[in-house]
């Protein structure tokens, strides 16, 4: 008899996570949280185009949330950790599952986005660290960082072409990542129906485009001097 014990609560969670489906579900749920954050974050930041006062006011509002902010940070951090851990484990699994590569392998259905998830992910992850150091804690901005004046920090930060370039690349990759990730998330959570799946795929594409255009527009606008 197959002896698979899934009775106790701890065992149940461990078994769930042990399975290839469980890891994908963790990827999907954490991805859901992160992609939701990315959208909200973008809309918040787009207030850059409404001027210094508006953006700084928004930042102040966020800071004033206090415990709630830390709770949100905790959720986001957990989601990121889970997403990255599961991704790393799945990447290892992928290599284990096919130890000998094909001499010749064609891709018939795999989109560019799906094929590149495995490196768009880590680059976006690295970008995330840089982004926090850049605008949240300020180390990457050094002396120019003024705590509380987000508008200033953003303008100064993006006036550096190298930094802006990294932002643009990373956000294009993020958009591509979402392009596959958002639809994939639904599929992993078991949402697939001939009636709705084409719409979900369209939604994922729109999502990717919106995030991409929205996030790239900010460094670009600063670089070309549209926002000063």
């Amino acid at each position, binding site marked *: 008899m197959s002896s698979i014990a899934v009775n106790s609560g701890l065992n149940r969670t461990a078994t769930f996570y042990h399975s*290839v489906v469980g890891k994908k579900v963790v990827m999907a749920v954490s991805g859901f949280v992160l992609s939701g954050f990315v959208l909200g974050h973008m809309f918040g930041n787009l207030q850059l185009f409404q001027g210094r006062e508006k953006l700084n006011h928004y930042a102040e509002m966020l800071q004033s949330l206090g415990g709630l902010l830390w709770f949100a940070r905790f959720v986001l951090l957990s989601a990121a950790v889970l997403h990255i851990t599961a991704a790393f484990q799945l990447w290892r699994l992928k290599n284990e599952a096919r130890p000998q590569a094909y001499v010749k392998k064609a891709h018939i259905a795999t989109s560019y986005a799906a094929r590149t998830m495995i490196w768009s992910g880590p680059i976006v992850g690295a970008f995330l660290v840089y982004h926090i150091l850049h605008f949240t804690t300020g180390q990457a901005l050094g002396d120019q960082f003024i705590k509380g004046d987000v508008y200033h920090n953003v303008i100064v930060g993006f006036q550096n072409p190298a930094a802006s370039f990294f932002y643009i690349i990373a956000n294009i990759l993020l958009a591509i990542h979402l392009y596959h990730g958002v639809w994939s998330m639904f599929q992993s959570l078991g949402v697939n129906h001939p009636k709705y799946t084409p719409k979900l795929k369209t939604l994922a594409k729109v999502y990717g485009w919106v995030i991409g255009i929205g996030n790239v527009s900010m460094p670009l606008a600063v670089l070309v001097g549209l926002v000063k």
Partner: protein
Amino acid sequence: MKIILNIWRQQNATSAGRMVRYEVPNANEHMSFLEMLDVLNEELTRKGEDPVTFEHDCREGICGCCGFMIDGVPHGPQRGTTVCQLHMRHFHDGDELWLEPFRAKAFPVIKDLMVDRSAFDRIIASGGFISVNTGSAPDGNALPVIKKCSDMAMDAAACIGCGACVASCPNASASLFVSAKISHLGQLPQGQAERDRRASRMVLKMTDEGFGYCTNTGECEAVCPKGIKIENIARMHRDYIKASATFREETSGGGAG
């Protein structure tokens, strides 16, 4: 027509393999791909060389025995077609092709283009059935089945277990195969009693057999000779999530007292 073949030759599971180049000068557009390999093998035998080993049986696209990679695609370029039904008219004189076995940790190579797919049987044994002993069945019409459900179960049940889905998957996942069985039985009223247990056990067995996970690339669906849809994979995830939350494996047999 002349066909140039680069074929993966591997003596047995433990030896190293390599690509060997062959020419089939007298191929014919009416031949099936396997008949073209038969011609090559007859020639090799006459020359005293070891013929190329490949799996095949019914040669009418239903037994699921055949299958190898042609230019990186399981069963070759013709969609919805097993390699035994692929005909040479889809190729051109002078074409050079690369033939490799299906590659996955769970599908170890036995010889040349032949692999061991018994992991599939073990997954079915872990729960891919309805437990009904011979003789204990009620009348066939005792339980009406919604036609749509029956048709969708049949769509999933059309899987021939060839393994092309695993071979094409960038992660060597068996999700399409496993989900086809979970969908087949899970959409029928007869299959409800064991639905949780089936999803739970089959997914864990698939994991333990060393198959990868699904990244929803759709590669499997594109190469499946029977058109099995990845919609089934979503259904498997659904069933597995639900089973993980609620299913309890029985602890002891109880016993008639």
